């Protein structure tokens, strides 16, 4: 879909624990196809120290209501100012940005996420399921309380979790989970989004086992449209703007 700048109306706001907010924002214009893994870039008002826009992954799309859901973790001034907005207020958004994941035809795929990186994997899974495929989630966190909205994910696909302290699921990192041994032969594609160290470790497993792997990078961004060249990552083609040529990359192309 063509990119645009627009004031979207907040039609839903759910505060989860006290540091996550699940937003739904609506356009009065029709959406064309938005690709899972694309993101939105929001202008923050009422925060004097916040000059640049703030990027957030699209969690899911409702094409009937022309609305976008996204999950926001409150971490600093920008997200704090946004958290004050209420249903009925407007958000100034540039969207949809970036390339998104390439939803391919592999029968079995593993969707590996950590932190707010789980958000776009929901949209990925929805598209895979619509194609009759069998995605499976594998999420990691430091401790049980750090997971959010697990039920939502569990409702649409199989879900495995790991925690570093063993408070839930398998103890260890996502890369330690037994599913890798059990299903490595059948998994044909990996979609990952989360902390860079996690995505890098997952990429190494994928490479060793010859599995196609895509990762959504999380560089600090500004313009979101490829013109400021601040969000670069070194790739086999040289430095590339992750907001334009990414945020999703084939992990074989990334120079970690």
């Amino acid at each position, binding site marked *: 879909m*063509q*990119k*645009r*700048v627009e004031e979207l109306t907040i039609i839903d706001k759910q505060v989860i624990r006290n540091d996550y907010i699940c937003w739904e924002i609506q356009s009065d214009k029709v959406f064309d196809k938005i690709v899972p893994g694309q993101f939105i870039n929001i*202008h923050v008002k009422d925060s*004097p*120290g*916040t*000059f*640049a*826009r703030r990027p957030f992954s699209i969690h899911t799309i409702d094409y009937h209501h022309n609305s976008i859901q996204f999950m926001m973790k409150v971490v600093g001034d920008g997200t704090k100012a946004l958290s004050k907005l209420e249903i009925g207020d407007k958000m100034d958004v*540039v969207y949809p940005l970036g390339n998104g994941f390439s939803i391919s035809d592999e029968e079995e795929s593993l969707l590996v996420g950590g932190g707010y990186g789980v958000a776009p994997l929901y949209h990925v899974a929805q598209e895979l399921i619509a194609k009759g495929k069998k995605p499976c989630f594998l999420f990691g966190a430091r401790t049980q309380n750090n997971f959010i909205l697990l039920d939502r994910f569990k409702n649409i696909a199989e879900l495995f979790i790991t925690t570093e302290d063993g408070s839930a699921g398998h103890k260890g990192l996502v890369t330690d989970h037994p599913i890798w041994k059990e299903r490595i032969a059948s998994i044909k594609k990996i979609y990952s989004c989360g902390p860079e160290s996690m995505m890098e470790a997952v990429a190494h497993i994928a490479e060793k086992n010859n599995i196609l792997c895509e990762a959504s990078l999380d*560089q*600090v961004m*500004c*313009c979101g*449209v*490829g*013109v*400021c*060249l*601040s969000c*670069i*990552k070194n790739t086999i083609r*040289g*430095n590339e703007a992750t907001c*334009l040529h990414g945020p999703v990359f084939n992990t074989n192309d990334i120079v970690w």
Partner: protein
Amino acid sequence: MVDLSVDIGGLIIKTPVMTASGTCGYGEELVDFMNIPDLGALVVKGTTLEPRQGNDYPRMTETASGLLNSIGLQNKGVHYFHDELYPRIEHLNDHIIVNVSGSRIEDYVSVCEILSDLTKCTAVEVNISCPNIKEGGIAFGTSCSEAAKVTKEVRKVWKKHMMVKLSPNVTHIAEIAKAVEDEGADSVSLVNTFLAMAIDAQSRKPILSTITGGLSGPAIKPIALNMVWQVYQAVKIPVIGMGGIMNAKDAIEFILAGATAIQVGTATFIDPASCIKVIRGIEEYCNEQGVKNVRELIGGLII
């Protein structure tokens, strides 16, 4: 209908609004947001003789009302621009102005020679003011004699419009402007970014990989405005003003201070349609004020 066209020194552009180099890519990134042919000119990313990867990440951070960057002129080199990029963007505007940068005077000259045969490339903006490369760039822009030397050598090979982009990191910017005017510059553009830095108190480390960078955005506007005013009074050639222009009101202020045209930079990062919004806003202002021709406003400061 307001006449928005201006003459920037032998070159007539249909509106006084251009993109600022390094803030609009090559224009093609912005086609979803605005009609690029409506701009007075498209000023593209700083172009060097050899490809450059730019500086290491992180190379941008925000400050109160502005941005600090040390991109370091990442570009694929003039040959790539000539052979690959130009054919892709030549339909975007009648005036595609290439911002020419370099570490040695010979490099500026070579880049201009290579650009000479591109029809829509009706002007170059000689960048003697980049604060983010180790050699050259700003070094040429902070001394009258060096600035004059670059201008003189480029003038020998570049027959079309030559704009020279000045650094604000000097004591007397008007002196530099006069020096390049004397060597045949057709216009001067100002300002480039201000040398600045940002520190993370927690880690006690600089935020940018290069320690220092260049400051842009609303934070620099009043200083830039003064510099445009100073230069306007010192030279006869047209002045292209920039520095923190976020909307039409800001643009009008620069025109009143003496700018014949203006460039919109950092604003594009906040709203990718900024340039067009500034053009519409200038038109509205003229209508409201009963101004038939935007040229009436140039240097129109009432003292």
